[in-house]
């Protein structure tokens, strides 16, 4: 034990001797003092241990940095993909709360509202209260208890861009709109066309209400009334146009909101009256009282039923649009003005509408109807135009040049008798039914969003790595 200690001491002495022999061979620069002396008065800048900021960066550097940034990146991509998924799933799923959320998000709704939606039976389906950041569009007044549905159209007749193919239906303020249309078509075979109309109505979730046909084989004509869900109204019209040549078409939207509200109020009041009469009846003591109250009650119940019936009818009319289709075999008669239908894919629907209106007014024509709708984020427009026969070919050709022609049908005039455009006392007689669509492009907003988000994440990652790299935090530590 003692030997061991001696040994150890001996070794320590030897080591001390070994190192101190060499200590003297290390000398700093000759003028250390001359460098040091002027600094004795200066405020000393200490080489303190790393500050909080520096410690944070060191903590962040390396695998942590990669893990955090990639997690954030993945989250951002998932969130973007999620919102895109909701965007793309709206159209087909109108009666669900997710479509409401999606529409609301798209519009940046800034209120906490109790949303509801009308289903195909015209019954309000409530949607849980949801709060969204942002502000409601100024043109769409909504209170905190408003029930809304997709497919609202404003008083100007153009639909809100909530991503659906909409012409009517209830609006953000609970507006009740009944949409109706009548279409006259020239078809080569009336029976075939009748079948097509019936199939179309059923496919769109609607039905055939009324049908009659008359005439011989080559002079046949038919009238058919179909009901389609309000949100399929425009689709139905588009499909009808494809079945033949449109001779005439009328679209009518009737706002019945006020009547609806009145009926609801009357119903509530009648129901209250009914309840109070029931209560009074229960307390009646004499037979004569009972009879008198019973009479009154019978009247009130009849009134309630009547009102309920009217409301149901109105809801049904709002939920299901009526289209009357008149089918004829074509008859080329002298003096008949030409007509045409045209579907054009354009880059920007709004701009094209403006230029079409300009074109039509330039030839003293009339824009009868203009409806804009949104379907799955794609905007489309339907315009009914009237021009003078003299300008018909010129206008058709000019419209065709607005974009890529997807469908074109022309029924030529049966005579060379042309009404000059200048004769403004005669209304323009040639009809053009123009549909403007946006071409399907790979580069949708969704794709651009994903790519932009990805690029942003990459840039942030590079910046963080660059900062960390400059601070010398990514250097591999060596022992």
């Amino acid at each position, binding site marked *: 034990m003692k030997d061991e200690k001696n040994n*150890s001491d001996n*070794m*320590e002495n*030897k*080591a*001390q*001797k*070994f*190192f*101190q*022999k*060499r*200590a*003297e*061979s*290390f*000398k*700093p*620069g000759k003028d*250390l*003092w001359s*460098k*040091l*002396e002027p*600094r*004795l008065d200066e405020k*000393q800048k*200490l*080489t*303190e*241990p*790393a500050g909080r900021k*520096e410690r944070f960066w*060191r903590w962040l550097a390396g695998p942590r940095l990669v893990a955090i940034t990639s997690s954030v990146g993945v989250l951002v991509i998932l969130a973007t993909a999620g919102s895109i998924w909701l965007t793309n799933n709206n159209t087909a799923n109108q009666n669900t709360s997710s479509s409401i959320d999606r529409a609301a998000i798209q519009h940046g709704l800034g209120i906490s509202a109790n949303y509801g939606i009308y289903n195909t039976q015209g019954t309000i389906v409530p949607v849980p209260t949801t709060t969204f950041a942002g502000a409601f569009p100024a043109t769409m007044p909504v209170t905190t208890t408003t029930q809304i549905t997709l497919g609202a159209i404003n008083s100007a007749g153009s639909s809100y861009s909530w991503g659906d193919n909409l012409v009517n239906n209830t609006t953000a303020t609970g507006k009740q709109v009944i949409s109706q249309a009548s279409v006259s078509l020239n078809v080569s075979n009336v029976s075939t066309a009748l079948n097509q109309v019936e199939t179309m109505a059923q496919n769109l979730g609607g039905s055939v209400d009324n049908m009659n046909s008359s005439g011989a084989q080559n002079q046949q004509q038919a009238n058919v009334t179909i009901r389609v869900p309000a949100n399929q109204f425009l689709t139905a019209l588009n499909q009808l146009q494809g079945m033949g040549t449109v001779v005439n078409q009328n679209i009518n939207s009737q706002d019945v909101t006020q009547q609806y509200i009145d009926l609801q109020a009357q119903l509530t009041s009648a129901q209250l009256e009914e309840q109070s009469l029931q209560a009074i009846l229960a307390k009646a003591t004499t037979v004569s009282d009972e009879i008198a109250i019973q009479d009154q009650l019978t009247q009130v119940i009849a009134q309630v039923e009547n009102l309920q019936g009217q409301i149901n009818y109105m809801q049904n009319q709002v939920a299901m649009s009526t289209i009357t289709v008149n089918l004829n075999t074509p008859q080329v008669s002298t003096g008949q003005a030409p007509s045409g239908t045209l579907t054009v894919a354009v880059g920007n629907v709004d701009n094209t509408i403006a230029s079409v209106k300009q074109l039509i007014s330039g030839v003293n024509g009339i824009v009868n109807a203009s409806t804009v709708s949104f379907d799955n984020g794609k905007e489309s427009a339907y315009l009914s135009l009237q021009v003078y026969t003299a300008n018909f070919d010129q206008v058709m050709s000019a419209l065709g040049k607005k974009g890529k022609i997807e469908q074109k049908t022309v029924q030529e005039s049966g005579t060379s008798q042309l009404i000059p455009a200048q004769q403004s006392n005669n209304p323009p007689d040639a009809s053009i039914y123009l549909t403007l669509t946006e071409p399907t492009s790979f580069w949708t907003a969704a794709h651009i969003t994903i790519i932009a988000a990805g690029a942003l994440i990459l840039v942030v990652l590079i910046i963080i790595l660059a900062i960390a790299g400059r601070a*010398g*935090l990514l*250097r591999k*530590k*060596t*022992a």
Partner: protein
Amino acid sequence: MIEQTVMTDNDIIRRCQAGDREAFRTVVEKYQNILYGTAYLMTGNRTAAEDHVQEAFLSAWKGIGNFRSGYPLKPWLVRILVNKVLSYQRANAIPMISLDTEFFADPAGDDPAEEIAQRDQLRRVMQRLSTEQRQVVLLRYFAGLSLAETAAALRRPQGTVKSQTSRALELLKDLIEEDNKK
């Protein structure tokens, strides 16, 4: 002899505490080599070592007012220096520099061949040790600090320093003994 040095240091310290720069100059000249050697062996870089030594002396000058007389000056200075170097290395994530031939070859530029050979030997000795062992050996034998002083300067428990020292000596045993026989 040792007591006389302490006494002398005490005198110098008192004068320094009174703001006497000449007295401080004596301190600098007396301890600069040992501080420089320690810093150099810790950093492996002449400029960095000189900077650390300067900073350590500046800190000593600022803090000498609080130095308790009667205590030896060298361990205090070495401790300041070691703190400077380790803090700097930690703050800047600078790894312990490997003791390669190149930086040991000519630290002062104009040294006699014998000194270069001695440093080279020191390098070979130090290369065998881990970073912790190197620091312990450096302070214990190169700077001449006691076990307690070394432990305090490196902020390690005395037991740890002791075991690290004996393991290091075990590794260096043959080389040191061989050298001492010369």
